[in-house]
Every structure is written in C-alpha cells, then in structure tokens.
C-alpha cells in the first residue's frame, strides 16, 4: 500500500512543521493589548465589550461557565458578596485566571465587574 506509506511520510513532515509552529507561537504570539480599543470611558459602559473580548472565552458568552467558573445567574455575587473581593481577583488573577492589571484600567475592571454582577445571566 505505497499510497498510505506516502501519506504517513507527509503526515510526519506536517507534524514536524506543527511542532515548530507550536514552539514559535508560544513565544511569539502575544495578544495585542486591548485596553486602548475600549476607549476612555467616554462612549458609554465598556463592561459588555470587555467581557465579550476578554472573559467570555473562559466564562462563557452568557456567563454559563467553561474553563472558568460560572458567573451568570447570580453565581458571581454568591461567590463574591463583596465587590472588592471580585475586583481583586480580576486585577491580580488567581490560579489560571490571568491578572488584568496592566491590560485594563481600574475603571475598566470596575465596569466589567459591574457588568458581571448586574447584567450577566
């Protein structure tokens, strides 16, 4: 079955290219800092946009959870009765939750926290 042998050869080469790309991208692919794109608070509440861009990939588009814990349906208020505690986690990170200090301004962090507590789910 020479065709299959050739396919295996091609697949081996492809895998090698993928490994190289994997390593290169780990070091080269840094996300663009999004803070500027949300604007300086002048254009209304940036909370929903920040949530969509930075939080939804882990916590779900409607806060239903995923890699990160569920936030919607009052879950985040239940887990963090004090706003300051949630702001601290968003700012400084915890576990695999990244620290958003440096990416978001304190005002933007408060906006997204407020969005999660009041309008999510």
């Amino acid at each position, binding site marked *: 079955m020479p065709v*299959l042998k050739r396919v295996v050869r091609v697949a081996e080469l492809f895998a090698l290219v993928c490994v190289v790309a994997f390593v290169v991208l*780990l070091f080269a692919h840094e*996300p663009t800092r999004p803070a500027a794109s949300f604007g300086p608070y002048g254009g209304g509440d940036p909370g929903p946009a920040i949530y969509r861009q*930075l939080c939804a990939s882990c916590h779900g588009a409607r806060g239903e959870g*995923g890699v990160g814990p569920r936030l919607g349906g009052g879950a985040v208020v239940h887990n963090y009765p004090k706003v300051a505690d949630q702001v601290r986690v968003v700012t400084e990170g915890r576990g695999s939750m990244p620290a958003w200090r440096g990416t978001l301004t304190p005002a933007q962090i408060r906006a997204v926290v407020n969005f999660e507590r009041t309008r999510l789910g």
Partner: protein
Amino acid sequence: MPARRPAVLAGAVLAGAAVSLGLGVYGRLHDPTGGRLFSLFFTRTISLKTWFATVALAFACFQVLSALRLYGKVHVPRRMPRWLGDAHKLSGILAFVVSLPVAYHCLWALGFERHADQTRRFVHSLLGCFFYGAFTVKVVFVRARGLPRWALPVAGGTVFATLVAIWYTSAFWFFRTQGFPSF
C-alpha cells in the same frame, strides 16, 4: 548493541523529561493571556478543544487496538491487513497533531495551574506536560533498535493512559458540566 540499550533508554527518558519540564516551566512563567484562539466551525474555542481532544482520544484508541493486532495479542481480524502498520503510524501522528492546538491554548491562554486545591486543573496541568514528555520517549523508542521488548509497550501504554486521564479531566468534565454534545 546491548551495551547501547541503557544509554538509549536513559537518553529517551531524559529527552522526555526535558520536554515535560520545558512545557511546565513555560506554563508557570508565562503570563496567561486569557485570549481566544480560532474556533473553526465551533461556537467557542473551548468547544473546539473539547472535540479535538476527543478526536485525539479516538485516534489513540485505534493505536492501541491496532498495536494489539500488530503484536499478535489479539487475532481480530484473523488475517492482518497489510495496511495496518501504516494506519497505526498515521493514527498516532494524527492524534498528536490534533492535540497540539489544544495544548497550545492551554499553555498560552491559561498557563499552568499552580494551586493544588484546584484539583482538576492542577492534575490536568501536570498530565498535559507529562504527556508530551511521554510521547517524546515513545517516538525515540519507535525509532531506536535493540531495545528491550517491554520498552515500547510500556511507553505506548503510558502515553495512552495519560491521554485518557487528560481527556477525563478536561473534555469529559466539559461534557458532564456543559452538556453533550456541545459545539
């Protein structure tokens, strides 16, 4: 050739350890981006990861079954197809390739879970790093000559068992908590 065996075994294990350690150190030191990757036709990156991990597991299951037939441990089908060896190789390569975007997002966006109280994520992080080290060892064993008969089955079994555990702590968890099928 027998004199080379310990050196090859040790070299393979050291190379695997270096890969695992390298990934762990990267995951620990790299500031998780929390970013999204492409999601293809899935609704979310996590759905893509879940299904890619499941596909990798399916290929790995084929690897184990075909290896059992190739080594004569089972006799189904009674007459071994001539293409089985190549199909075995191909399934292993595809399982590995499909796992890479998943691992990439884990390392790049989420990092290494350093808190042991987050048991699932902590175990998943450890296993994820271990997997690529074990895979490296297996690839070296496949290419090496004159190794003990137990070397390749042990390496292959370790890779498979690790992948099952990785899938259990990620994709299975996702299906259980988010619903199945979830695209």
